[in-house]
């Protein structure tokens, strides 16, 4: 199932990028007519003189060796990915930890303390948070904590782990808010289940009821959402990377699209697709472990 999905994705992206109007080589040369042998040299370098299917086949062949090809300016796409992937990974993991920790905490607290002022506050707070656009939150955090207070770096990755705090917060807070609300209703559903009343009636300690019975049952939808969140994060948070000047995959994708850098765009989207497919695969397997009722052939 995975392989045809991937192949189909590659073909689609490849097609969109290479069959689109506009000549990237002409763009590189500022639309000045290059000499025929220069154009021939550049075209040969990128197999642009071949028919579409041959180009596609060459691409797949190279891909199976881990070679994503070279961009139109001569750099190895795999090198670009190698350099930028750690940045996106760190950002993704940072945001993800905030998502998990804060999100779970919010859901559990809100569900358990339902209909109290704590619940209402959390509901209101998360609602505000998910309506704030990522762009706005990013700029505000950057301005307040970076420029005005100077507590954290404004941009770039020079300051080590500190550089990732504000960007991770920007993403993590919004994801956590969303998860908090979904998780809360999910847990509430389970809290009102008959098996919970039975367990409480039998005198099981509250904590065991909550931790073992409620949470475990609520986990499947929550883990699914975690998986999707992580998969999206790994694709490269384009807006956040741009605001904080993090040289990650998302930033690279913007530049690649703007400059019609075909090989770069295809390579990055490909990578995104691969990561997405595998992350959701892992999530599915996890869910099967958590809930034995779900079985996979």
């Amino acid at each position, binding site marked *: 199932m995975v392989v045809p999905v991937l192949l189909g994705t590659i073909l689609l992206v490849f097609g969109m990028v290479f069959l689109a*109007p506009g000549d990237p080589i002409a763009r590189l040369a500022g639309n000045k007519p290059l000499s025929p042998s220069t154009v021939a040299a550049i075209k040969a370098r990128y197999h642009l003189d071949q028919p579409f299917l041959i180009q596609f086949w060459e691409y797949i062949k190279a891909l199976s060796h881990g070679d994503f090809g070279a961009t139109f300016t001569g750099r190895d796409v795999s090198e670009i990915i190698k350099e930028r992937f750690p940045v996106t990974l760190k950002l993704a993991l940072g945001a993800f930890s905030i998502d998990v920790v804060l999100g779970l905490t919010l859901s559990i607290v809100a569900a358990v303390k339902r209909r109290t002022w704590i619940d209402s506050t959390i509901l209101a707070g998360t609602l505000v948070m998910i309506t704030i656009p990522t762009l706005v939150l990013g700029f505000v955090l950057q301005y307040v904590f970076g420029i005005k207070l100077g507590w954290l770096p404004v*941009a*770039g990755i020079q300051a080590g782990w500190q550089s990732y705090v504000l960007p991770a917060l920007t993403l993590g807070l919004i994801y956590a808010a969303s998860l908090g609300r979904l998780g809360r209703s999910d847990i509430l559903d389970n809290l009102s289940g008959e098996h919970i009343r039975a367990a409480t009636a039998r005198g099981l300690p509250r904590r065991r009821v909550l931790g073992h019975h409620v949470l475990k049952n609520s986990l499947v939808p929550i883990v699914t959402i975690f998986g999707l969140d992580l998969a999206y994060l790994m694709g490269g948070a384009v807006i956040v990377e741009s605001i904080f000047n993090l*040289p990650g995959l998302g930033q690279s994708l913007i530049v690649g699209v703007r400059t019609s850098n075909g090989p770069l765009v295809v390579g990055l989207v490909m990578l995104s697709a691969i990561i997405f497919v595998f992350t959701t695969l892992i999530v599915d397997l996890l869910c099967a472990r958590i809930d034995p009722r779900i079985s996979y052939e």
Partner: protein
Amino acid sequence: MKRVTIWVAAVAALAMFAVSCGGGGGGGTPSGSSSAPPGVQGGTFSFVNAEPSTLIPGNDYESAGGQVLEALFTRLVTFDFETGAPLPAQAESITQSDDGLTWTIVIKDGWTFHNGEPVTAQSYVDAWNYTAYGPNGYILNFFFDRIEGYDAINVDKPKTKELSGLAIVDDTTFTVTLTAPFSQFEITLGYDAFDPLPKVFYDDPDAYNEEPIGDGPYMMDGPWKHDETINLTRYPDYAGTPGFADNIELPIYTGNAAWADFQAGNLDITLVGSDHVEEARIAYPDTLNEQASSTYLYLGVPVYDERFQNKEIIQALSMAVDRQAVMDAILVAEQPADDLVPPAIVGYRSGACQYCTLDVAGAQQKLAEAGGWTGELTLNIYADDVVLEQAMEAVVNQWKQNLGIDAKLKATPYPSYDAAIQAREMTGPWWSGWGMDYPSMQDYLTPLYGTNGGYNTSGYDNPAFDDLMKQGDQAATVDASVPIYQQAADMILEDLPLIPWGYIGFNTVHQPTVTNVLKNGPIDSLALELVQVVQPSS
């Protein structure tokens, strides 16, 4: 010669290409003494940059790499900051033969590359041959198309790798023979296509790209850290006038983060794009420097469409627009165009364009005389630029109000937009920009309006214009060529195969930690070697 898209300029917000201003001292004193008072030397400063596409001079056609190469190299010529006229830099002298076909270039003796290798005539000739050789696939190949032998090394399978028009006379002298006289040749030598290269380049160009070696006042301080920074340090054996600072950092930014870093005090000098110009005028009035860049903005006109073949209609359209008002309100980083070239180019005349100032009554009269306009008038722009859309919306409204024309705006995604312009399929005027390759009027005129111009997208075809440009090309000196080019420009300003719009600003702002922050004359880059750090660390 390149057409520039404005958002590229805005996003990168960086210079076109660059020339080092070092050198110009006497014949090769190894440790050239600085003419600046002591105490101003030294220190480190940072200037915003974007990720270059390459740092190989013969293949670099964008401004981020150009800014770096400006500090790494001293070219044959540099340009006067005031007049834009060419001055010898690494060259000792550049003279033209009487028939105008052969140029003799004598370089300064005793100069070395950053790795100690001497800079000789061979360093230039070999480098030029390499870029000019078609099968190497270098973008700047076309810069050599005026030199004899160019065609021969650009056929499918050339039999030779050398331009027949280049000849070495001795270690410091070589000659260049052109296929036709070109008075502006000396000016073209200021572009990085003509940089000399050390022998190590040919062994491994890819390795060279990561840590280029030039002959300029600064050298690479470690390899290019992709997407992070490029750091430079003083070249101690530089034979020309040394730069002031000891170290230069060029951190790499994409997007808005540079402005944020500048506000936080982490960046010493930054460029100010239209999104921050107003803020800068209020917050940093003392250090903001707004100057016109070399990018020329205009509305292309499809002269190949018979509705636009009456010049009075175009003149009317041009006179009905209040450029200053649009720039005051929306395109704040631009200045109205009043000639076909920006102010820093030799030969610029203020107010040369008589149809570029707002004159509603005059416009209405012209339109009436021309027989009026029937039907729709579509102004084309590329999509995804909100600010541009607002500005051009204003232009469309002005045409509606002032001339009663049924004008409308149409946005197209960039690749199809560009393709339609090149294919001469536009149905109405379109937004465009032109970036020069070298600071000469000729580079703004011939490519755009010459019958066989490399970027003639209007379809303008005027043999009289072509003749005048040829005469200018054959003039004996740059000074002699200017009046002739100006005559040719007057033709264009009258026939208007375009509606001149404006000049983008090359605007810089800096912290009080540095001074003497200057643009490289007509070249759109910062004169890095002239920046002084106020409290240099010893």
